[in-house]
């Protein structure tokens, strides 16, 4: 996959901050630095789907933040529409919330602030195969 451009990273950071504004001990999406891991989240997607999502995010990032928040809020009830009527809204949800939340909450931020902020510590001692 081609690495994201700086403009694309800024777009994702803007949308990410709408979804995860930070506060109360948690960094905002942009402040966490996890945008550098977005390629990992996107590289398994079919190329056409990935390009469509990147284009959409680049377009959405032109919107002012309050309008972006309104768009995501309006998407919430619309994603419950049955059948193909709800499909574009559910796909938008997967592309935005799905990608942003997966990257942010995976615990891959360099300083571990996100998992520390939600007090999540998962441990399993590895064992080498015989």
């Amino acid at each position, binding site marked *: 996959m081609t690495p994201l451009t700086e403009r694309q990273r800024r777009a994702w950071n803007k949308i990410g901050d709408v979804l*995860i504004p930070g506060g109360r001990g948690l960094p905002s999406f942009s402040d966490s630095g996890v945008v550098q891991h977005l390629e990992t989240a996107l590289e398994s997607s079919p190329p056409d789907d990935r390009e469509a999502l990147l284009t959409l995010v680049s377009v959405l990032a032109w919107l002012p933040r309050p309008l972006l928040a309104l768009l995501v809020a309006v998407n919430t009830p619309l994603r419950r529409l049955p059948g193909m009527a709800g499909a574009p809204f559910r796909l938008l949800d*997967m592309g935005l919330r799905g990608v942003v939340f997966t990257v942010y909450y995976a615990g891959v931020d360099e300083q571990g602030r996100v998992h520390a902020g939600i007090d*999540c510590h*998962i441990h399993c001692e590895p*064992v080498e195969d015989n």
Partner: protein
Amino acid sequence: MADRCYDYIIVGSGAGGGPLARWLTAAGHSVLMLEAGSRFQSHEHPDNELEANNRLMWNGGMDASRDAGFMFLRGKVFGGGTVINQALLDRFDARALDSWAERSGLDEFSVDAMARHYDAVESELTLEHIPRENGNRNAELYVDGFEKLGYGWAPLRRGQSHCRVDQGNDCIRCLGGCPRASKQSMPVTFLARAEQQGLEVVTDCQVDGLSHGRQQVTVFGRQQGRARRFFGRRCVLAAGSLGSTRILQASGLAPELPALGKGFYCHPQFVTLALYDRIIDAHKGSFQAVKSDDERFRAAGFKLENVFMGPSGAAYLMPGFGAKHRDLMRAYRNLACIEVAVRDVTPGRIGGDGRGGLRIDKRVGAPERQRARAGLNVIHDIYRATGARKVVHSPVRIGLHLMGGCAQGRDRATSVVNPDFQVHGLPNLYVMDASLFPDAPGINPSLSIMALAHRAAERLLGEPLDARPEAA
């Protein structure tokens, strides 16, 4: 390997392909296994959800139905779904098998007939009922609610050998592959034995199609961008419901197989999260320890699962965004989770999207909505009885048990695979995975896929196979 003609090619390395390879190699046959995913040593499994989704699952864990109403999680890794599942291993009951017998016309689908296949598979695995003291507070709450309301529950039986939860290990980690080789996934059980017995494996090789001939089957694939071709006297598709169906369709066999792609089921899951004023730590220790065991639920077509997920999964399953969503996630340790898994009866359909990918039509029909409502009503009662402060319903529908598409049966009009696991009319081509299922059983399918693989091995070899004399 180039141009060699194996006795068997097996496509896929999960709960169907793994046991089959073990018994075919034990009988002295040359077997080549092709797996689309990569191979990991246990300690190399990803240690976070982002990497796990990317490296162990098809499409990063976001396979969707055509209307995006379902998200399907399926393994793309050596060991298949058994690497990313929870290894919850239950036998099918008469309710499930009698339905299969009726649909397929096969008497082999019965509790008595399946018993020796289950015995054989279980003799190769280490199975443990999760002790009550190993259940975390999410399990305690589940049990507390069930007992207060008079519902039946039971400890889960899991394929595991040395999780050492008492030493502080958290089993939620093994949703991304078990780093301790404790979870009884195929690579540490059947596949390990098969390789000792001569199984050859090619990973990172996606099969695009096949050509069935009188003497052999040619399998076409791609490995790291390079076209590959493999030859086998017989080929067994064990690539899962979606994978095996896709390969048959891509090979141009749909016109000969009118039932191909039909009858897709997935045990739709309706996830709820509840917020408590006390620490629950649902992600700690044996995060799945108990199950519903109530004939009323079984008859009503649902089961309730004591379950949880990592922070990324919880965040996506929770609706909303912004400050409110952040505040719920800050209370991650105060969250409990129970989900309804519905025994679906509205069949879906697997087809192609015209670009080489899948198109999966699957909807939640009226029976599924009714069953889900019944289960959710019980869950609300449980949460109320145990002091939950807030209940959240996830809008995301998940399908983890992907079944059907190549149903087994006698009638070519309604099945793809005959009683001997051969594709109808194609004597050198077989299917052995959950795509064989005639309908949804309402019980975790993994153990039964392995048991069917034992039966399939007997049919292929033409002789009964005894259970292993001692446990693994």
